């Protein structure tokens, strides 16, 4: 134990010696931050989005191996539930896919920071037994399919982009998520961004009034319907499509290129969009040659001023770890890591976390 403390002190001294060195090392518990004792047991609870849940649960188990005294419990009850619970102070951190609205933020007891934690993509999966190649969809056609205007697979608009494919003369069976979900929010955000008519008539949200189609519950429900029903199209999180080996359509992005939903294409979208100071931005229909257009950040919600300094410090360190060491787990779980340019802004924001007058990440 003593050796470890010496090591930490040494690290800190080294840090002071080479002021503001790159890359920023993780803050460490030393004499400079006396609130959280080395072995003090802390338990944190979080609640919110289901979309990044596989990644967060991986983070929690990995972080717990490194810091056995910190127990974290994350309940994937949905973004709406996460926002409600952090607002009511029943959990230590929230998580949401769609950023909080202003009136929601007003109900919180303090200022909530949005911390972009990972990047995910929503893919358009389909079941076309006759088509062997990858389906290509322009934003206009995708909007028209979900608006019920393109009804048949051999519609001339679809044929125009898929000259090589043998599109069948069958009805398109459209499937959407019926339960409120960040996935729907991300997908409709994209549809609303590429079509003014969609934005006006249907709108953007976690639950919308779909002009056509069938509702399935959860990503697993949509996946099940696409998998079992020929001539179906549905939107799901990337992980569900890749794990179930469903074909994913290439979408035409803003630059006019057809792009498959690869991790690189998700990163390209994130790199193409400048992150503003409030750390909340939409990646829908992003610029950039290689950008996949239905990409989104997923956020953690943390109070700027922690009521409990011990918990606040433990949480700040966990989030810091997740955004640095935790990012290497993203790719295997179908998420894209946070780009370096964004990370430096997030680091600055995490250093602002405090409990009363005391900064929680004093070691950094």
């Amino acid at each position, binding site marked *: 134990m003593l050796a470890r403390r010496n090591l930490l002190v040494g690290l800190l001294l080294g840090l002071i010696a080479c002021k503001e060195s790159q890359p920023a090392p993780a803050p460490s518990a030393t004499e400079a931050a006396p609130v959280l004792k080395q072995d003090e047991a802390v338990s944190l609870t979080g609640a919110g989005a289901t979309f990044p849940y596989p990644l967060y649960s991986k983070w929690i188990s990995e972080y717990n191996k490194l810091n056995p005294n910190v127990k974290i419990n994350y309940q994937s009850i949905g973004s*709406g539930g996460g926002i409600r619970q952090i607002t009511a102070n029943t959990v230590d951190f929230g998580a949401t896919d769609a950023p909080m*609205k202003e009136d929601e933020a007003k109900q919180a007891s303090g200022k909530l920071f949005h911390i972009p934690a990972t990047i995910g993509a929503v893919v358009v999966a389909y079941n076309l037994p006759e088509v062997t190649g990858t389906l290509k969809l322009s934003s206009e056609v995708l909007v028209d399919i979900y608006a019920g205007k393109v009804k048949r697979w051999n519609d001339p608009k679809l044929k125009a982009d898929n000259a090589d494919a043998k599109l069948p003369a069958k009805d398109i069976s459209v499937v959407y998520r019926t*339960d*409120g979900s960040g996935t729907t929010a991300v997908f409709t955000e994209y549809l609303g961004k590429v079509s003014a008519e969609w934005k006006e008539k249907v709108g953007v949200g976690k639950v919308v009034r779909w002009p056509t189609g*069938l*509702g399935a519950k959860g990503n697993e429900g949509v996946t099940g319907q696409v998998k079992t*029903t020929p001539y179906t199209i549905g939107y799901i999180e990337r992980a569900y499509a890749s794990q179930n080996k469903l074909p994913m359509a290439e979408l035409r992005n803003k630059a006019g290129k057809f792009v498959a939903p690869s991790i690189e294409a998700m990163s390209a979208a994130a790199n193409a969009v400048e992150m503003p100071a409030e750390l909340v931005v939409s990646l829908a229909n992003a610029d950039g040659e290689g950008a996949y257009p239905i990409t989104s950040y997923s956020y953690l919600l943390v109070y700027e001023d922690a009521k409990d300094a011990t918990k606040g410090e433990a949480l700040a360190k966990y989030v810091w770890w997740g955004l640095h060491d935790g990012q290497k787990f993203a790719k295997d779980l179908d998420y894209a890591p946070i780009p370096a340019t964004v990370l430096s802004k997030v680091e600055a924001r995490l250093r602002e976390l405090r409990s009363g007058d005391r900064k929680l990440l004093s070691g950094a």
Partner: protein
Amino acid sequence: MSVSQEVSPLIRPRSKILTRFGHELNWGDFVFRRVTASLAMLMLAALAAMAAAMVYGSAESLSKFGLGFVTAQVWDPVRDVYGALPFIYGTIASSLLALCFAVPISIGVAIFLSELAPAWLRGPVGFLVELLAAVPSVVYGLWGIFVLAPWLRNSVEPLLARTLGFLPFFQGQQRGFGMLAGGIILAIMITPTISSVSREVLRAVPSSLREGALGLGATSWEAVRVAVLPYARSGLVGAIILGLGRALGETMAITMVIGNRSEISASLFAPSYTMASVIANEFSEATGSLYLSALAEVGLLLFVVTVLLNVVARLLVWRVGRLPEGGSL
């Protein structure tokens, strides 16, 4: 009526507590009675608290939409406009459809098990039927997605459309998922409830009735029809009500197959939506006070519909019980 006068003066009462029939009551009975009564009250209190909480939770929606909530058909969280008619329709229609399938099957199973089956078969078959009630509803739902819906889409619905397509019930796109699939799933789930209660009811019919009918030269079918069923009628209605209650409240399995679209359509092929499903689907992600309030009001409506249907059913039992040719239990 002063009961104390009826107590003989020769007997010294051990306690002064008397029942309303004038019998003396010992302390054990007194405590037992009060404890069980308070447990019963607790259930009533829980029911009242539930109703109060739902009215309180839906206050905003009640004042904003009023009665229009029950008659409006548009449910649009983006614009904060809420109408629950498609959910009410979907709930009642799917439950009644389920009864149409489940009642003949269940009563048939019950008659077979109580009247006709050889003794060695009754136990195992009855046990297997009841086992169906223990299958979790998510399993039924998954079976619905992967087996039932494809089968309906590929075989049943095309057949119905070919043969009975002139009826409005069998028209439109055949997708497998929809009202028909929802009704069938519910029917499978409520069959064990109805059949096991019905079997107990039929068993309670005195053998003398059967023997009398058979002795007069009735066939087994005639004995069941003339002697057993009329006697058991009110109990059978009770069993059906129990099944209906389960169908109305079922959430998970039906959500997975009914198509979840808030539209009213006469076609059994068309997707529909139930009250329980919309709460389960949207509550966890709902933000905004009017939205939450509208969902609470859907819960309140489900409560009201369930109570109303139960009242109707009780009246039915009461009426059936009073019919001259029918026996009563």
